[in-house]
């Protein structure tokens, strides 16, 4: 059924064999492990919840804690990191078209260092995916199903996501298209329903403690924006790359706006207390009371949010599965999906030790950890790629002058 007869696009990706400069041994590692193709718009739809689904839960509280009443600006600052991640992804894709980060790193820094680099990701991705799954589980158990075992909540979601991932990138892309549309509409609905309760005067005091807390606070949204690096893994699957930069910029603007609006609503509604709640957005949703009957709609919010987290977990599981398959030089990623999903499930228990829950994990140091792997490492690879390109250019010039 899937990976059908239409546009496989293999002809378009073929030139890579001639363009890649060296380290082209081991032909298996250059093939993509999934034959499916997605459009640029679908990619944008996949990335939006991949960043926002967990960000809207945690970012308002963390940023309020550090940046105080200026927290609404932190996503705008943080989006610079997103810009960098998009730049690196698109740049790498232009230099090494048709290769994901795991494959291009081997071409850039050589086989052994490249494989080591890939190994870092293979070790990091279950950690991140496990964290996302755990956050999902904690949220549902806290707010909707208090006596359901965590294992069941997380397990059912992982099973569904694993099926989604096994069906290929095309299915992941389409489910995101459907679900994200719903997500945006309903998220906008909560915000519209809350307008009456807001107090815009909470914008002030402006820069109460100077500009430093603003930057400290911005590390949290920055960590989420660094997840834009998923593009480096997904761009090779895009069938037509005419407007990639424009579409991705649009996606970045949309994500930043959504995050800023979420922060503003929490600030205007809950004010100084924003950082005292585990999930401030949930408090905001519970606060909706219109005309004495439109209330208790938080379960609707949870239902919609599950769509978002479904796309997010799927995207990260997909990247984890394809990266692993690419690293081991497999031809197809499908056999590894189920075992790796199970691994992520196990990680969901390992990432949180003790009973303090997820809130302690999503702290400042955790953000730096995420940023360093999702942004700084790819940036280094990209830097090396540039140096190599420059060096090759210089050598060519020298050869021609000699």
């Amino acid at each position, binding site marked *: 059924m899937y990976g059908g007869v239409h546009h496989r696009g293999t002809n378009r990706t073929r030139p890579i064999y001639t363009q890649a400069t060296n380290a082209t041994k081991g032909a298996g590692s250059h093939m993509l492990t999934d034959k499916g193709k997605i459009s640029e718009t679908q990619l944008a739809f996949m990335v939006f919840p991949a960043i926002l689904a967990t960000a809207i839960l945690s970012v308002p509280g963390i940023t309020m804690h550090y940046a105080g009443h200026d927290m609404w600006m932190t996503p705008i600052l943080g989006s610079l990191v997103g810009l960098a991640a998009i730049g690196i992804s698109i740049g790498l894709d232009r230099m090494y078209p048709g290769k994901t980060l795991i494959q291009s790193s081997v071409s850039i820094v050589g086989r052994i260092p490249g494989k080591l680099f890939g190994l870092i990701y293979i070790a990091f991705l279950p950690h991140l995916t496990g964290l996302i799954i755990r956050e999902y589980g904690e949220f549902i158990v806290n707010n909707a199903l208090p006596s*359901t075992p965590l294992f069941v909540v997380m397990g059912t979601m992982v099973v569904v996501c694993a099926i989604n991932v096994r069906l290929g990138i095309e299915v992941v892309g389409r489910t995101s298209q459907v679900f994200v549309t719903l997500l945006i509409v309903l998220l906008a609905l909560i915000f519209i329903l809350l307008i009456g309760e807001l107090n815009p005067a909470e914008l002030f005091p402006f820069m109460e403690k100077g500009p430093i807390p603003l930057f400290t606070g911005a590390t949290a949204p920055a960590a989420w924006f660094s997840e834009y690096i998923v593009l480096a893994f997904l761009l090779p699957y895009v069938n037509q790359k005419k407007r990639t930069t424009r579409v991705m910029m649009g996606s970045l603007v949309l994500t930043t706006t959504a995050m800023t609006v979420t922060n503003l609503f929490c600030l205007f509604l809950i004010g100084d207390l924003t950082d005292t*709640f585990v999930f401030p957005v949930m408090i905001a949703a519970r606060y909706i009371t219109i005309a004495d009957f439109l209330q208790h709609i938080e379960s609707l919010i949870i239902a919609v949010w599950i769509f978002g987290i479904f796309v997010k977990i799927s995207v990260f599981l997909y990247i984890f599965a394809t990266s692993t398959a690419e690293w081991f030089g497999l031809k197809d990623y499908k056999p590894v999906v189920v075992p790796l999903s199970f691994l992520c499930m196990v990680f969901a228990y390992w990432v949180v030790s003790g009973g303090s829950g997820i809130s302690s994990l999503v702290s400042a140091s955790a953000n730096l950890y995420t940023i360093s792997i999702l942004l700084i490492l790819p940036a280094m690879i990209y830097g090396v790629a540039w140096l190599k390109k420059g060096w090759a250019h210089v050598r060519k010039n020298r050869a021609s002058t000699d």
Partner: protein
Amino acid sequence: MRICRVLLLPILSCVLLSGCWDRIEINDLAIVLATGIDYEEGKVQLTSQIFVPRKAGGGDSSGSGGSPSGVTMIRTAEGRTIAEALNRLQRKVPRNMFWGHCEVIIISEQAGKRGIREYIDFFLRYPQFREHAYVFSSEKAAKDILALLDPLERSSAESLREMANLKLGTRVTALELAKSIEGPSSSAILSRMLVLPPEPDQDKLTTTPYVKGLSLYNKDRYVKTVKEPMSVGVLLLAKELNNIIMPVEFKPLEGSFSIRLIEIKTALKPRIVNQHWSMKVDIQTNGEVVLNTTDANLTDPAVLTKLEQEWSAKLTSLAYDAIDLSQKELRSDFFKFAVEFRRYYPKQWKKQEKNWETLYPELDVEVKVDAHVVRTGKSTGPQGIPNEDET
């Protein structure tokens, strides 16, 4: 092989379907409509008003006939902390208590004297409580108010909620109460509820709770009750004044005018000049004359101007009284001046934050009222004056 697969499917489904862990039937729930907190002899008393579905459902009213509504009942339990009381309360109710519909919280002044921090934490932490629940204060025990069976509404919780929506006193939700107490002003103003004495031939529970006065909280403790006319001034400065008819009289006219408030805007304008802190309160208001017992004709611009001046003067003096009470007598910032200073002068505020308690009573406050009578009702001239020109 195919049969195996077909069989496997329902078997696997059973694994998932077996546990609907959180399934609680609606008739296993005791829906709490309102909560009351009292404090007596060192113990917290938690009272819940529980909805009785059987009585609400049937249209047959030929039963006891004693209580016209009678769809609620109350249960009370006590404990050293509110959580302990909650635990004991559940033992007195055969169904699983559900607090998600609790729209009203009443804290008695007795409980307020001991501090309400514990209760606020509980309301914002216990998962089922709604942050939008309205909080009231009561003079006597909160459980007496919850026990009432309002003849007009389904329950006394409903009548309390309607009263909050009418904005007869302050309309404070649990979240707003927490914000107010944890904010820089660390104070709160709650509406004070009393029990209306029932009609002589009625059951003593068949009556309505009603709003009378305000309970003032400094830090998290109840400090004072204010009644009219002081409460009008307090509401005026707290930006909560609504729904009021005020008599205004002035010489040389006999009788008085009564003015109904249409619209009121209170703006707080903090100012710091040369280390001197002052607050300017700007009140703009529109009103409508609903009663004129004087002989004066309101079409006369001179009378109207005079009336507006007198009304302004009356509002101004009410506001100054309230400020005196807050600054001199109670020395606590009920009107959230601190919030305004923090907003407009964050740097100076940061320096003086710790001294606010000593700074506030010395603060210069200037009140400026701009009152307008924009309507005079259906009539222009005075009505109902017996014809005196005959002689």
